[in-house]
């Protein structure tokens, strides 16, 4: 049984949401559907499951790493080469707070940024299924279904107000 990947373009959120509902009825599961949009559309509006993300976990990891690095800088490095200055402690706590804060934030921000790259597979210059109308505010639903059902689904979606339904082909962005 061969599979077809189709791409349906919608003008607005409502028809797209209806179409997704219909697809579910026709036996296309959520794993086989993806939505591309030019503005963030909440998953609830389209009746889609919550997309998982690791970004916040990575931020947390970054924060912990940064905190440890800050600890090393403030409380570790003075022991590597001891230089007394101004009658202050070798490993003073008040300036240490500043070092800890800055390093925690820096690493957390870097990890968050990196998280977006890792989770979204950036940068990715391979050919991908995409239609440029999406950045004009349209919503594209692309889904995988059995080859023999493709025609039937296409007709159904056209009835639901799809601007076009066509086989999705990977192209250079």
């Amino acid at each position: 049984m061969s599979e077809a990947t189709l791409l349906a373009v919608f003008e607005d959120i409502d028809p797209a949401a209806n179409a997704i509902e219909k697809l579910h009825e026709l036996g296309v599961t959520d794993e086989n559907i993806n939505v591309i949009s030019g503005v963030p559309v909440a998953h609830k509006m389209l009746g889609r499951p919550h997309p998982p993300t690791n970004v916040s976990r990575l931020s947390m990891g970054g924060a912990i790493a940064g905190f440890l690095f800050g600890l090393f800088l403030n409380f570790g490095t003075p022991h590597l080469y001891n230089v007394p200055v101004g009658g202050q402690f070798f490993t003073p706590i008040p300036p240490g707070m500043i070092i800890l804060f800055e390093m925690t934030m820096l690493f957390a921000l870097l990890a968050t940024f990196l998280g977006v790259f890792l989770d979204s597979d950036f940068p990715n210059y391979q050919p991908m299924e995409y239609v440029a109308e999406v950045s004009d505010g349209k919503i594209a639903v692309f889904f995988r279904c059995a080859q023999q059902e493709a025609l039937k689904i296409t007709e159904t979606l056209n009835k639901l107000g799809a601007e076009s339904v066509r086989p999705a082909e990977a192209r250079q962005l």
Partner: protein
Amino acid sequence: MTVDLNLVGAKGAIAEAAEGKWGMSIDQDICTGCQACVAACAMENNISFVGEEDAGYGRSQHWIRIERFWEGAYPEVKATPFQPMLCQQCGHAPCEPVCPVFATPHSEAEQLNLQVYNRCVGTRYCANNCPYQVRSFNWRDYHTIPERGNMVNGTLVFPLHNQFNPDVTVRRRGVMEKCTFCIQRIHKAQDKAKSEGREVEDGEFTTACAQACPANAITFGRVDHPESLVSQLTHQKRGEKHLEELNTLPRVTYLKEG
């Protein structure tokens, strides 16, 4: 004298123990303001000659300067004693912790503020934070200004380079410097004493400024030895320290109006 700097309250502990090691007393009542100390210091420590214009603008690099004040308005002016000002070698030096690269650390062995010329990157924070304003910065390579050299057989020759003191580093542009209490002389005396198997004696050596002072207003020595001359002078009633209220623990005592 070892103090655990990591103990809470270490600052107070140092304050009590901090007579320091090397100290100086300056008798303002007999200072004539002759500037011999300034000249001697410049010779001893290879201090740049910055020239009239830059000195006038505030870029003189002397490690010791004679401050001259007067009271009242012209013509009823009354001169006050001359006030030689140099690095006070503070026990709690405000200049030390602010350096980002540890270019001005504290010597635990000699109880002096050190300036590491080759570590300095020239942020000049130490000079800003010095309440005595005794740090001087090398704004320019004054030693090698081409107009000050003589062209001899196609190469620039600087006659003044012949009088450099070989014991002292010549500083380049972009680094901070300050009075070191003639640390090269301290080390020389210590080395000599060690080779002869004895302690350094009081009055065996002195700093360039003290040596040059014709009125003997400047005395240098061990302030932690009660029998030394400087220690006795320092503990006179008329002794006072500058800006003591800032808790900098200065090592220079000024004697005035005895």
